[in-house]
């Protein structure tokens, strides 16, 4: 069954899990064309073959400050509300099933991660925060939902 299949990755050293059903591909991006007058976490546009991705810096979205981009940054490609996004992640370790399924959060999540983490997923004895990519493409105030 696919609903227990997750992508395991990390952002700023924090292990995360994303439902595989949300993901279309993981790619290394080429040139990113910056966009003016948008929030910092919207890093720009990148071409993926004939498609144009809006590149979102998840780290900047969570912590409010952006890091210089890597040479060919790693991005998770996802279709959210009819638009294609590339969400930058630090590393990607694997796509596999989590045998123990989705667990409730234990302990207190810090204020940066709290709006995004909904549960825990365990892999190889290590807990990953379960996040939904759609949460990263809404505007930070949360007022205007990405339609």
């Amino acid at each position: 069954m696919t609903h227990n299949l997750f992508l395991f990755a990390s952002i700023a050293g924090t292990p995360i899990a994303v439902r595989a059903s949300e993901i279309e591909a993981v790619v290394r991006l080429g040139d990113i064309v910056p966009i003016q007058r948008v929030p910092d976490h919207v890093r720009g546009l990148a071409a993926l073959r004939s498609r144009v991705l809006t590149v979102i810096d998840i780290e900047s979205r969570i912590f409010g400050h952006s890091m210089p981009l890597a040479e060919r940054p790693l991005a998770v490609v996802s279709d959210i509300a009819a638009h294609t996004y590339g969400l930058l992640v630090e590393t990607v370790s694997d796509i596999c099933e989590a045998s123990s399924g989705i667990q409730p959060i234990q302990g207190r999540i810090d204020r940066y991660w709290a709006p995004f983490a909904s549960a825990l997923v365990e892999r190889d004895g290590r807990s990953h925060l379960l996040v939904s990519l759609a949460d990263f493409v809404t505007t930070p105030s949360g007022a205007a939902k990405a339609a």
Partner: protein
Amino acid sequence: MDEILAEFIAETLETLEVLSGEVVAWEADPADSSRLDAFFRFFHTVKGSCGFLNLPRFERLAHAAEDVLAAIRRGERSADPATVTAVLAVMDRIGELARNVGDGEAPSIPEAADDALLDALTDLPAPPAKAEAAPPQTTEAAEVEPDPLGGADANPSARGRERAPRTIRLPLALIDQLMNGISDMVLARNDLSRKMRDREADPELESSFERLSANVADLRDMISKTRMQRVDRLYAAIPRMVRDLSRDLGRKVTLELDGGDVEMDREMIEMVVDPLTHIVRNSLDHGIEPPAKRIADGKPEAGLLRIVARQSGNQIVIEIADDGRGINRTALVDKAVSNGLLNAAEAASLTDDQKLQLIFHPGLSTAAEVTAVSGRGVGMDVVRANIEQIGGVIGIESVTGTGTTIIMRVPLTLTIIPGLIVRSGGHYFAMPRGNVIELLHQNSSMVTIEEVGGARIATIRGEPYSLIDIEDVLGLTRGAMRGPRTLMVVRSSIGQPYVLGVEQVESNEELVIRPASPLVTAAGVFAGMTLPDNGQPMLLLDAAGIAQSASLPLRETKRGPLAGTAGQGAQRDETVQALVFAERDGIRRLIPLAIVDRVEDVVPSQVAISNGQAFVRIEGRLFPALNAGTGVDEPVKSLRLHAGRDALCYLISDVLDIIDVPSKLDVTLNAGRVAGLVMVDTDQLEMVDPFVLFAEAARQTGEAGRTIHCLIADADDAWLSGILAPLLSQAGHQVTIGAPGEGKPDVILCSGAAIPADAGDVPVLTLSDNADTASDSTVYRYDRERIIAKIAELAARRAA
């Protein structure tokens, strides 16, 4: 199972859409069995499928309707309006339930409500006895081969439907994927082409590559066509709407739909549905009069609503015409005045077209009372905004008492538009070419740029525009400049055009536009994104958004009512008519036709040269003449040029032709009387600069052609005061009779009898009643031309 259900729902909804037009036609002609068959088939199919899919509610409804239709077929019932309404209600219910199922929702209407519908179907008055004979036969006719005479009328349409082009259903997502695949292919081709350019030329490889390129281009065109749909789809809902509305409003309407086979982009059709619906509602509610009124006005009882679609270049033109009462200009203007949009003086100076354009203003509706259908004051302004949003134009023509025609012009497709690629601060952006009126270099002589209290104004050919630089709007750093910046005169859907300064306009490309994500559009200055052939993503600038974010004064102010007209004018091809003529020395030149008032024959005696300035006498008036040279000794032609108060005669040898020329000169010269060169077929002709001509003429009239003050010394001379004075006044001179008033006269006129002694240095012209006594200071009193010329000559001599 799910798949079968989804297919059933989709098919049911689609058939319903097609049938809604048919049902109205059926009502109009209940005996038309081919239509009845279509409905019968529909209900029959629904009934059959429902049993199979276990949808008992659908089955019950369809079954009841089928029974009724079967009864009509057998002639046991007649297709009266009540029956048709009941059958329609059942169709609507089935449609609604199907949508519920399609959306995976619980039915929005309780099942018990179906009983009322079924009762309406069955509790109907007894059929008229007569209905028994005819229908069964016609029913038969649809099933047997049509005989060449009788059945030919009804059957071709029924058969036409069955023989419609073979089609299959495809999910839209698949077509989009296909489109993306083709785009990938184009990019790969471009990449390959770049790599090939870096290598040594290989003709064989190149010819193969050319063939591949051509195939890819064809494929791309074909895939674009899969996005196209027939306008029929746009029309599908209209007959039903017109029927329902005209019933609610008590109107009688004949609907004509034409051009349903024209194709336009699927998305575009969706964008046009709402505006079209609105216009049709307006026509029925405000345009077409109630039947009694129409009869009283001598019109046919049923109004005519005609909707025509046609393709014109890369635009689709949709015309909605009614023969109703037309738009009440007075009511519109009154409303505009009472809303404070215009003051009374402005209102009085509006042209008829400008008055009509008021209908596109927010909050102006001519409906005296608000009805459920329209007249709530949200109307044509929203329609116009919607049409302009998709790059279209809307126009209106209306004749009071005769009808209104609304013309929508929309681009064929939303997704591929011609665009200009601009560069600024190291970034590239695309601007839809439709938004750009003109491109100029900043250092062009036609442009002056000034800064007043922080506001920058670019004045182009005397017209001031707000000037903004794209770097300021987007917060970019300016790149090091090489050469002059480029100014784009940009038109947006809101308000006045403005000038956008960019570093450089790089190229002109057909761009495939995709919607940008909400995060990007939230910036307010981007309308979409595109991937040009170089593979670098690019943002499409939003002309209106840029104006708004720069807080330009764009709110439609006093020029508001005119803005719509201006926009339309600019859509037309920019050509002007020009007159081709031969100068007196034989050279062919052009002059704008608009300023030529008349072409006249001039004989040498009409031309007078006084003090080096030439004048032509025409109908008792003197006009400054150009090109008279040292005089005219043979008949010539004169172009009488007119511009407001000023008029002049331009003497030429002959008029040759009238042609259309671009309003922009091919080469601008600004050398003397020549404004520039225009290419006409194989030659280039000089365009005469009217400005220079009038300036020259103004110098002449300033010296000699000004008002001449004539004094008629002898007030008692009945001929002078009664006959000559009116003639002189008519020629534009000031005439004083008796004592000189204020200031000295330029000429004193007298009859031969009494030459005033106190003339001093004022020239005296004596009018003699003897034709033989003419001399330098004496003129025969009935030689009108000579009198006028002599007065001008004397006054000019005195002024000099």
